[in-house]
């Protein structure tokens, strides 16, 4: 199943990320402690080389926070994220941190509207001194080509692209840093189904050709099944179930996983008789 060589690329150990609210002004005067949101509350995960790990769960379960910690965007409250055995946070050089890159959900707001695709990509290449200045232009062309955009895209602003094309730019930006690990946080949930399919195929191709390892965060079970070798199910800040994709889908062990799978609407599935929902809410 999982084409895993067994080598760990990214490891999350005992990760905890709490956010402290400010509390109300009145509460502060009264000396009440501010509320603490335990977004991630003790998670261990391992991503192997060449593997795609799907991280699923509902809004507020902590999957995005976890992915941002793993990408080094948040400094965790406690716990460690290791890239190839070395702690990612506090890594002294950029070279280490650039090996884990992120693709964001919203292809509209995650690009600078005033920079052309070429400028966005060459800025990264120049800053990280990945290629000699004279070759920046060529490399930008290669990247644009790699994600399946036309060459003329280099001189265009994000506004002239459709959602799917913008997500391709977002992927090119992540790939510009020649990462080993790609962390994709809901990369297709803002896209139409047919466009979604093209982006999923692109990610599958890139994973193959570049030998990437991927942490794929999504609430869409069908998409996750399509793309992942293994799956981790998160609920309330902890991983409740983890396993090979077909195993989790066909023999879910945890109640929450079962509920999640039963709630997925299916094409051709007969309209389910409505259970007595009155007076019952899970939240």
């Amino acid at each position, binding site marked *: 199943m999982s084409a895993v060589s067994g080598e760990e690329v990214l490891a999350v150990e005992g990760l905890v990320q709490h956010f402290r609210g400010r509390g109300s002004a009145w509460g502060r005067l009264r000396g009440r402690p501010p509320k603490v949101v335990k977004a991630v509350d003790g998670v261990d995960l391992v991503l192997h080389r060449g593997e795609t790990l799907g991280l699923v769960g509902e809004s507020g379960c902590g999957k995005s926070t976890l992915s941002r910690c793993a990408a080094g965007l948040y400094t965790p409250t406690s716990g460690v994220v290791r890239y190839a055995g070395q702690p990612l946070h506090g890594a002294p050089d950029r070279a280490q941190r650039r090996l884990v890159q992120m693709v964001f959900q919203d292809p509209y707001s995650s690009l600078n509207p005033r920079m052309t695709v070429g400028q966005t990509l060459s800025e990264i290449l120049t800053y990280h001194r990945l290629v000699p200045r004279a070759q920046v232009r060529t490399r930008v062309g290669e990247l644009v080509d790699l994600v399946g955009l036309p060459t003329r895209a280099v001189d265009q602003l994000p506004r002239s692209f459709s959602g799917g094309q913008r997500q391709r730019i977002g992927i090119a930006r992540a790939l510009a840093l020649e990462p080993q690990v790609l962390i994709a946080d809901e990369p297709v949930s803002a896209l139409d189904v047919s466009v979604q399919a093209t982006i999923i195929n692109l990610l599958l191709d890139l994973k193959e050709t570049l030998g990437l390892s991927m942490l794929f965060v999504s609430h869409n079970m069908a998409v996750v099944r399509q793309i992942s070798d293994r799956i981790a199910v998160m609920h309330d800040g902890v991983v409740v179930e983890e396993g090979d994709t077909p195993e989790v*889908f066909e023999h879910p062990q945890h109640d929450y996983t079962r509920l999640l799978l039963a*709630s997925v609407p299916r094409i051709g599935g007969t309209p389910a008789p409505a259970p007595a929902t009155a007076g019952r809410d899970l939240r």
Partner: protein
Amino acid sequence: MSTLVDGPVREPRSAPTVGTPVLELHDVDVEIPLPHGRLHAVRGVSLTAYAGQALGLVGESGSGKSLTLRAAMDLLPSPAVITGGSVVVAGTDVTGMRPAQRREHISSTMAMIFQDALTALNPTMRIGDQVAEVPRQRLGMSRTEARARALDLLAQVGIRDPEQRYRAFPHELSGGMRQRVCIAIALSAEPGLILADEPTTALDVTIQKQVLDVLGRLRRDDGVGLVLVTHDLAVVSSTCSELDVMYGGRVVEEGSTEVLLSAPRHPYTAALLRSVPDPDAPVHRLLTIPGAPPDLLQPIGGCAFAPRCPAVVDRCRTERPPLMPLSAGHTSACWRAHEPQEWPGQVGEVAVEGVHG
């Protein structure tokens, strides 16, 4: 819905008989005047929604599905306007009515719920008061009666402990609860039909299921019809019995959901279906639709899908196929719909194409 002015007081109506048409659109055109031309977003759409029936309207961004719904509800965002055709609500053509009269007629027959429940609700008003507003203002109930009615509606949409939740503000509720409040508000005018524009797209799957169950129960128990606009074929499959597929501002295929999703007779429907990942049967690669949607600023000569269609013939590029009947209740706007061929990449083939690597 929460900014209703005082309208004429009227008696609460009983829901119309199941099977009577509540909403009929005949050749509706919607155009958006833009600085560089007129965007012809909806191009001659005809459809009928019946009481007690769930009709799905699917298509991708820009297919005109949302504007069709808003045109029916007289809620087109400015500067979009209806430029042709007629909208018939509960047997009365509303196209020629004066605006105030039209809104009164439409809002007494149909109600709408939106994708983003948080922005649809008034953030400064307690949710109970928002639900009680229509019974109080429009149905002429007393404060006490309206409150009782609101509590009733909140319970009906599955809000536990409505007495206590009555005093909550929208920001205090979860997304699923907010959408339920919106449904309660929609129900407060006792509509025969609910128009829902992507009502569960912003919700988690478990919550989505609960909201869809509420809508399903209202349809079965109270005969409230539903027009569901969505891009999610799986949601339509589990909710709607009838389906209209839109592309480039037109309905391209129409029929029962079961037939359309198992044996589509329009290449676009077939293509859309095969690009949806199946949670139970992963494939090696998803099939995609090459090319891009049509530019609606331009007139389209033949079939709008022709440039992307795997089954295209010369005629498709020059002559636009009308909706042609195939069997009872099943129509398709494709010149080749009658040919006894399997569309390339139909659902059945994809499911067995490969096993997850």
